[in-house]
């Protein structure tokens, strides 16, 4: 079957024209579609879909993925098998679309418009949870101080959307008008700052976390 093609053959066939190219595209499509189907069928959140719907969905995803693969052929560096590389692209496409579908009717603007990390959020936890030791409460105070006074409004919103709402970063990036990488850096900087402030006070996240176990 298709997987038996060597990487060089895949590239040659997909770059050629005529029957060899058509056949390679057909094989790649079938290979991706079959696997996407079984993957989608195993997903808890798609359990309500019938096999026919899953077939249609996997067909759509495979079709789009083949197009992306063809566009990106020059980026294949041969670190893995060609089919593994194509499957990576298909997974990225499919999961991106599933995430978009799940979040499409949500207005991030509305749910995070206060731009605050619900400052009372952690404080409430501290006060409602008498077992929260003094050291946890101290750490919460440090974190809240950084969140309220040192992070930018954008960082607060991003951190809130990611940590509390679990919003996919691709959607959040779009909402904030940032590239994916810029968003990653924004949150990474916030995390580094939080960690540094805790350390400066002699508080170690690892130890704080260990006390919950």
């Amino acid at each position, binding site marked *: 079957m298709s997987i038996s093609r060597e990487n060089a053959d895949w590239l040659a066939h997909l770059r050629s024209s005529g029957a060899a190219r058509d056949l390679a595209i057909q094989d790649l499509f079938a290979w991706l579609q*079959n*696997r*996407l189907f*079984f*993957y989608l069928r*195993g997903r808890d*959140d*798609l359990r309500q879909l019938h096999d026919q719907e899953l077939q249609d969905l996997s067909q759509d995803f495979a079709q789009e993925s083949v197009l992306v693969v063809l566009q990106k052929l020059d980026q294949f560096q041969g*670190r*893995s*098998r060609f089919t*593994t*590389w194509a*499957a*990576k692209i*298909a*997974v*990225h496409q*499919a*999961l991106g679309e599933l*995430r978009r*579908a*799940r*979040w499409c009717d*949500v207005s991030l603007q509305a749910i995070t418009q206060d731009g605050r990390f619900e400052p009372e*959020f*952690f404080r*409430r*936890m501290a006060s409602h*949870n008498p077992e929260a030791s003094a050291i946890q409460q101290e750490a*919460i105070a440090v*974190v809240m101080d950084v969140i309220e006074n040192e992070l930018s409004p954008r960082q607060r919103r991003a951190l809130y959307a990611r*940590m*509390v*709402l*679990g919003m*996919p*970063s*691709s959607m959040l990036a779009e909402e904030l008008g940032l590239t*994916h*990488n810029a968003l*990653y*850096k924004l949150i*990474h900087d916030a*995390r*580094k700052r*939080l*960690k540094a402030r*805790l350390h400066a006070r002699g508080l170690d*996240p*690892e130890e*704080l*976390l260990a006390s*919950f176990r």
Partner: protein
Amino acid sequence: MNASRNHRPHAQEVWQKLLHVLTLTRERELTCTEVEDFIDYYVELELAGENPQKILPEVAQHLRICPECQEEHEALRNILETDL
């Protein structure tokens, strides 16, 4: 399909999640795009019984911190393990 969206986690859950990502936070980290470049190679190493955590520790670190890359990693593994 929208369970995760409507689920507002308890503050303590978020606090632990935050502590967790802070323990994993490094001065230098790969971005999702950089991880995506290597994830196919990473999964092949895994399936070949190699130790990708050792060979690509920065990718392994990112996978522990980033839910989307984690999900894509699992999906890719699942797809490559599918025996048709």
